[in-house]
């Protein structure tokens, strides 16, 4: 009955910052696959008497991300304590920025359904520490039926930037695009790896429905979203659940619901009469974080070209299609590889095709980073120049590329092997004579002046190039032919 109800969605995204050490101590942040409780010290274990000291690198990465999102950076921000008891929270409080975050009021442009872009406002970006992890002692690692629970503090104190969007998202698909855009940005900046499966990018969604002209109903927070699919599916589920509820005359309660991957439903957590009171107050162990205008400017100067700007440049400056450009900018390293190849003289369209197919395919298959790709951008450029000039056929070029990649040989060596190498002048002359002998009629027409547009000599040149498999330049072939025809 209220079909005109439309979703209002805002996302809170936690990005793990790529600092190397934790936000308030010197322990390593590398917890994936580590033996439990090895990267710990009195500070991140919350031992009596331990005090936090802020990691400058986390501030730097947070500032970079804030600037890239067009935020206003606060020169004075503050850390609060968020108090609650849970076994994975060593101190009994989480240190987090609260009413004075590092960055405020930014935006990010997101592709919408109609092929345009939509500007999504960013309310804030703040720094905080991660909690540890509970490992449940049941056979299947789940809470139910567990005989005991163990705490692993390796992740406790890993720096996070929480990025909160305004409720500007209007569909699950747009929400997905927003996460993709943010992830792209995070990776481009190098502030985090943005890996949702590994938990280094975590999404919580707030969703409510509103009719035209309404301010909107109570919002529901969805947690436990470990993939883009989960985000989209849970939002779709929640939209229909809330629509049904309202159409039956019910009201949506403000609550937190968990997404269940298996049943594909959201499930309300224990209904609480009141919201949990976190008793936020300024952390007396940490003086206000004061940064200078100069620090912010230094960060601004270090900002790399952002994905949007790069995509525009690829389209407008290099003549790529929107789709091609989008694929290339998805990963900063790939875009940089492409840029380097073009800078080394590779024809852009051809380079784009090769990077998207030959390079990306291999990277995906072998699950390696572009930085470790064995064929350097300038080698690729040299190869593609030869293809562009007709000197090499695409087939030969592919063979060369394969050898360059798998055997790590030099370009010259690859060319020698697959093209038989550059012919000597004697070989070239011999081939020329043979070609002329086999095409006496054409030669006579040329000598008889019946080739005003040079088409016939071009034909002979083509024959020779084919025979040479692109191992010699067209100019050299033409010169040989001319000498043999006219100077004999």
């Amino acid at each position, binding site marked *: 009955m209220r079909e005109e109800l439309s979703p209002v969605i805002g996302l809170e995204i936690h990005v793990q910052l790529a600092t190397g050490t934790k936000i308030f101590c010197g322990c390593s942040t590398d917890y994936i696959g580590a033996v439990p409780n090895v990267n710990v010290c*009195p500070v991140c*274990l*919350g*031992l*009596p*008497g*331990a*005090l*936090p*000291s*802020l990691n400058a690198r986390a501030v730097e990465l947070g500032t970079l991300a804030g600037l890239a999102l067009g935020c206003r950076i606060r020169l004075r921000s503050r850390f609060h*304590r968020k*108090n609650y*008891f849970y*076994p994975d929270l*060593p*101190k*009994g*409080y989480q240190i987090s920025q609260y009413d004075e975050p590092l960055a405020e009021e930014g935006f990010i442009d997101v592709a919408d359904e109609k092929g345009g872009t939509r500007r999504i406002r960013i309310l804030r970006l703040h720094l905080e520490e991660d909690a540890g992890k509970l490992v449940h002692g049941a056979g299947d690692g789940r809470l139910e039926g567990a005989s005991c629970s163990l*705490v692993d*503090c390796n992740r406790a104190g890993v720096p996070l930037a929480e990025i909160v969007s305004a409720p500007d998202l209007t569909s699950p698909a747009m929400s997905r695009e927003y996460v993709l855009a943010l992830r792209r940005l995070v990776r481009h900046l190098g502030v985090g790896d943005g890996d949702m499966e590994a938990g280094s990018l975590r999404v919580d969604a707030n969703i409510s429905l509103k009719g035209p002209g309404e301010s909107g109903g109570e919002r529901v927070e969805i947690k436990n979203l470990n993939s883009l699919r989960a985000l989209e599916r849970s939002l779709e589920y929640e939209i229909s659940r809330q629509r049904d509820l309202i159409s039956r005359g019910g009201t949506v309660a403000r609550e937190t619901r968990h997404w269940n991957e298996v049943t594909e439903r959201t499930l309300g957590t224990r209904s609480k009469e009141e919201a949990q*009171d976190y*008793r*936020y*107050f300024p952390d*007396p*162990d*940490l*003086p206000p974080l004061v940064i200078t205008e100069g620090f912010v400017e230094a960060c601004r100067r270090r900002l790399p070209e952002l994905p949007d700007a790069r995509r525009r440049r690829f389209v407008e400056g290099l003549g790529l299609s929107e789709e091609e450009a989008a694929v290339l900018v998805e990963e900063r390293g790939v875009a940089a590889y492409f840029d380097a190849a073009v800078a080394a003289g590779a024809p852009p369209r051809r380079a784009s095709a090769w990077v998207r197919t030959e390079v990306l395919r291999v990277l995906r298959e072998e699950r390696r980073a572009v930085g470790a790709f064995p064929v350097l951008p300038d080698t690729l450029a040299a190869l593609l120049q030869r293809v562009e000039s007709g000197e090499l056929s695409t087939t030969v070029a592919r063979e060369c590329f394969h050898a360059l990649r798998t055997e790590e040989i030099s370009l010259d060596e690859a060319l020698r092997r697959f093209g038989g190498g550059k012919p000597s002048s004697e070989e070239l002359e011999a081939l020329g004579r043979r070609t002329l002998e086999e095409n006496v009629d054409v030669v006579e027409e040329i000598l008889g002046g019946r080739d005003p547009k040079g088409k016939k000599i071009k034909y002979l040149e083509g024959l020779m190039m084919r025979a040479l498999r692109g191992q010699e330049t067209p100019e050299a072939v033409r010169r040989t032919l001319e000498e043999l025809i006219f100077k004999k």
Partner: protein
Amino acid sequence: MELWEYSAWRLAEFVAQGQLSVSEVVEAHLTHMQWQEGTYHALITPMVEAARDRARALDTALAGGADISPLCGVPVVIKDNICVQGSPTTCGSRMLERWVAPYNATAVDHLLGAGAVVVGKGNMDEFAMGSSTENSFFGPTKNPRDPNRVPGGSSGGSAAAVAAGYAPLALGSDTGGSIRQPAAFCGVHGLKPTYGMVSRHGLVAYASSFDQIGPLARDVGDLAVALEVLGRADDRDPTCSSRPRTTYLNAIQTYSLKGRRIGMVREFAGSAVDPELHAAMVHAARICQDAGATLVDVSLRDTIAYGLAAYYILAPAEASSNLSRFDGVRFGFCREAEVLQEQYRRTRGEGLGPEVKRRILTGTYVLSSGYYDAYYATAQKVRRRVAEEFDVAFQSADVVLLPTSPRLPFYFGEVGDPMAMYLMDIFTVPANLAGLPALSLATGSGRDGLPLSVQLVGRPWGEFDLLGVASILEKAFGAPQPIQGTGGKYS
């Protein structure tokens, strides 16, 4: 004169000049300590064997030509909320009864680096909450000046240890008077430095924005040396200042009161202060005047009126959060249960004492949404107001004179009402609220031989003036002596 009667700097001098070995100094103190401890219970953990080992190691190092100063061979007692690696650090609580610190507090590192020898961990009110050391899980400490009376608190064990001659020097911590008030009760000197002077790294937090480690001693010079050793920048405590520090010991020898102004607090006249303590303050003022100082009238109206209330909002607020880590999960006392909430309830219910619970509840309440502005935010305003009032006072005065305590040491159980106990802190909390340095000076004894005292409060980083004025007053009043012993049991 027995070795345990000497000041710290004097003992260090004997050792430096080769007149005494560290082992001789330490052994004399350990023996005396073991004779007294059965009577006073100043320590939670005596560290006799560790002290002997350390003394031998220092003697070996000295024999090898090592240059260790300025506290080489000086026995010290460390309050039991300050971490000493490998030793229990209980905070006077059942919660940490068996917790052994895996690291040294920065202050302890500095003392050890200067050659000090830790002889024990001092008894205290649980988590430094109290003014009598009656709140220790391990039982109260007795006042060496009168064993029927409390030693003050919360650093009662440290103060009693210095008064009883276990050591010439002890570390305490002061959140609302916890160094100064027990020093006053036990007839020794105690200094709470400017907030940010001494690293809090390794001090188990009670109220982080108030807590400060400081020395207790029987000699103003010892406070000066200790401050030189302790007062260093530390990047493990972001609230510890990186401001360059000065030296004190030599400078205060030549301190002159000529041209200095001593602030006498106007609103103080009507307060309920023991007449003898009031007289001690007037006496101290006269000594300063005779030595060339001018007495000036200063106002601390709002500080006296509202400071204590603000303190008992803000300190519990911070405490309620600081003590959340005692949940039985990673360390300390734990009562396991099937359900998590039940485990928390039992662990904290049985592991923490009543005063600690009272302050956690108070703090939790004042931080609750809906009450935050009325309590916490308002108290923060009072805190700023206190700092402003002191700012104004220090425009006309170099040092402000106050009593340390409104009362002389009381009997065990005499002050049962928590509010009455909180009132003991009325003259000490202002310095903590404003982050100022303050020194309680022993000024002899009054009726029944009970110790008298005055408190000097200085500008931020004004320790030089405090120590200078104190050294002149000490010459007039005489330095306090350790008690000669009760002939108690050897423990």
